């Protein structure tokens, strides 16, 4: 099995390096094809590993070589394929294979075609390291690696100012979180003596709860950045400046879920600190609602989907925080399928609309883009959690888990968010595919994407529809490692009521969205009452958080930097130069002592002698009358 492990891991690397060879040459179709094939081979290997694990085979654990070893620290390049990682591997390789193939069409006319594949495959490699590593350091390699590739891919069109800005923003924000992660890793090392999962986690059971809490918090800070949780969420929406396949792969299906993966991977730790878990769950629920609310009014197709991703990540954290790790993982998987599908569909629309992103400027596209319409609708249904699509099984389980754990606030928030999700998803679908063909105003002639792109997307469509049936086998698979419990609501009746109620609530939201937007006919120009309401503005401006960051963090940082530079020049350096110039100016000012006049020179000599003489006399007198001086001084009470 190790062979397959290595293929799964290194095929993307080979693909990346192969593509990188051609980065500076014009577009070569075969680069895309070979890259896709290599990623596909990784997918096949992952599938083989999955069947191996499903068949109850042993966990595949290899140690390739030593990475760092010093003192007591020993970090190998070790990889493990267990139930969790194999799930992630499947998700990663599957989605990335599809995205690779899709990109051959999507990036068809881009002169950075070859470079794109180099980055994309590099991302897959990093992600594979992240999920397959058997220790925290390896995880961190992947963690930073995906950050790097995300930087390269968001800023792929580097001539665009916004794109490069967004790339840097994403990188830096992730770095802030990575610092937390790093500290978490240090905590793990100094308290357990190892970074290997299989040594560190068992050792944690013996640690005191304060240490564990810090550990959990710092590791979670890392997760927050990668998974764009509040308050480090702004980069995700901005990251939509990257090519759409990137958004599908990185910012929907895989990288952003790394944070969830970390929490799931560290389940043994978080099981020991339920209060931190509760915090995670609460934050997740908050983010779910928070992001969904911003998606309600946004007028950028990709950003809406990005907020939806954010919202769904909130769901996953809510589940993971509540201890329902397998549910979180399952939702992660299901979400990857339908959200990637949604993004790729959006990519088709963008292509058709010549990179127009405002759904209000589209409308009626279902006539020209039937395939895309169907796919996006189904993906949206899955996202909304309509039976029998994937989202139903994964999302409802989260709700059940929250309910069963008696966290009614979280449950309520998540339920409400489910409605919002349905609403904004279908607002989007309705605006894009239904109603009047508003794009005609802008003189655009949309066309359907290449057929092979649609075909490439079809596995996702398929999975978005049927992924629910994997729930039970999946549960059985991960049960032993995640120690999972099935969440049984007290009675079937309650369960049924909940399910039906949720479905109806969601359904109503969809209908409302359709009713409101399916026959939309004009492009809003910011003059309507609702657009000027406070709530709308608040939501549209993302609660003014990016503005706040810009005003209260970025600008002060700029100013402080400039000020410090001044300090460096005018205080620190000036004091050094000052000391030097004290000597120099002392020379300048006293050189007149050497007037060149013999009289003066003789005077200096005599004066020197006289001064010394008077000192001598004083000393001599003091020595002679020392007894008297002493008595006088003592008389004075000195």
């Amino acid at each position: 099995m190790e062979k397959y492990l290595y293929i799964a891991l290194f095929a993307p690397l080979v693909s990346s390096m192969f593509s990188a060879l051609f980065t500076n040459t014009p577009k070569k179709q075969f680069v895309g094809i070979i890259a896709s094939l290599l990623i596909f081979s990784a997918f096949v290997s992952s599938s083989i590993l999955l069947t191996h694990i499903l068949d109850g085979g042993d966990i595949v654990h290899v140690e390739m070589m030593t990475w760092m070893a010093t003192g007591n620290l020993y970090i190998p390049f070790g990889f493990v394929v267990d139930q969790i990682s194999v799930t992630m591997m499947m998700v990663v390789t599957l989605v990335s294979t599809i995205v690779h193939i899709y990109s051959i069409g999507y990036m068809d006319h881009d002169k950075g075609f070859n470079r794109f594949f180099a980055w994309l495959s590099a991302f897959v490699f990093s992600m594979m390291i992240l999920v397959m590593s058997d220790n925290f350091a390896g995880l961190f390699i992947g963690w930073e690696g995906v950050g790097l590739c995300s930087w390269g891919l968001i800023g792929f069109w580097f001539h665009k100012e916004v794109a490069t800005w967004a790339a840097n923003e994403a990188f830096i924000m992730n770095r802030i979180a990575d610092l937390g992660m790093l500290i978490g890793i240090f905590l793990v090392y100094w308290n357990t003596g190892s970074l290997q999962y299989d040594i560190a986690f068992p050792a944690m059971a013996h640690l005191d709860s304060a240490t564990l809490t810090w550990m959990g918090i710092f590791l979670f800070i890392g997760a927050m950045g990668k998974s764009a949780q509040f308050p480090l969420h702004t980069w995700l929406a901005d990251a939509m400046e990257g090519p759409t396949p990137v958004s599908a792969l990185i910012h929907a299906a895989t990288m952003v879920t790394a944070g969830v993966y970390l929490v799931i991977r560290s389940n043994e730790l978080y099981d020991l600190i339920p209060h931190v878990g509760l915090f995670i769950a609460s934050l997740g629920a908050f983010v779910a609602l928070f992001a969904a609310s911003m998606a309600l009014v946004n007028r950028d197709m990709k950003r809406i989907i990005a907020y939806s991703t954010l919202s769904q990540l909130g769901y996953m954290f809510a589940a993971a925080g509540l201890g329902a790790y397998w549910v979180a993982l399952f939702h992660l998987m299901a979400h990857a399928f339908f959200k990637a599908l949604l993004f790729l569909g959006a990519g088709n629309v963008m292509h058709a609309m010549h990179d127009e992103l405002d759904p209000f400027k589209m409308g009626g596209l279902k006539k020209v883009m039937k395939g895309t319409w169907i796919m996006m609708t189904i993906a949206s249904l899955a996202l909304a959690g309509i039976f029998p699509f994937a989202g139903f099984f994964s999302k409802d389980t989260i709700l059940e888990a929250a309910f069963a754990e008696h966290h009614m606030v979280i449950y309520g928030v998540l339920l409400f968010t489910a409605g919002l999700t349905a609403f904004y998803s279908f607002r989007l679908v309705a605006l894009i595919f239904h109603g009047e063909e508003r794009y005609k105003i802008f003189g655009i002639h949309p066309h359907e994407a290449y057929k092979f792109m649609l075909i490439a997307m079809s596995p996702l469509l398929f999975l978005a529809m049927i992924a629910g049936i994997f729930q039970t086998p999946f549960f059985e698979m991960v049960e032993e490692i995640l120690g999972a419990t099935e969440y049984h609501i007290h009675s079937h009746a309650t369960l049924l009521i909940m399910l039906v109620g949720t479905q109806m609530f969601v359904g109503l939201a969809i209908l409302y969205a359709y009713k409101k937007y399916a026959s939309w006919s004009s492009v809003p120009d910011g003059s309507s009452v609702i657009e000027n309401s406070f709530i709308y503005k608040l939501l549209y401006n993302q609660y003014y958080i990016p503005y706040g960051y810009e005003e209260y963090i970025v600008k002060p940082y700029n100013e402080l930097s400039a000020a410090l530079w001044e300090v460096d020049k005018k205080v620190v350096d000036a004091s050094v130069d000052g000391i030097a110039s004290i000597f120099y100016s002392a020379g300048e000012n006293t050189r007149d002592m050497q007037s060149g006049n013999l009289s003066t020179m003789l005077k200096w000599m005599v004066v020197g002698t006289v001064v010394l003489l008077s000192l001598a006399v004083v000393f001599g007198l003091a020595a002679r009358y020392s007894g008297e001086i002493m008595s006088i001084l003592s008389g004075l009470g000195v």
Partner: protein
Amino acid sequence: MEIGLNHYLILSTILFAIGLVGVMRRKNLLLLFFATEILLNSVNIAFAAISHYYGDLTGQMFAFFVIAIAASEIAVGLGLLIVWYKRHGNIDLESMTSMRG
């Protein structure tokens, strides 16, 4: 009043002080040389007196050497003075300030 050693020493010191003042005040090279002579000769007085006081000849020897040295000094000094006078037509200290700083 009997003239004792101290009187000689005081005289010597006063002469020495006069010499010092002269060294500082004189702007004429020749007068400056006079002042240095006063310095040396003031010391001679003291040496002679002390020598007499101790009853050994060392001090007087010293005085003789001082006289000899003073003489040779003046020989060299006057030589320099004459050269300077030949080249510049004066022996003012003010004229010797080409090097400074």
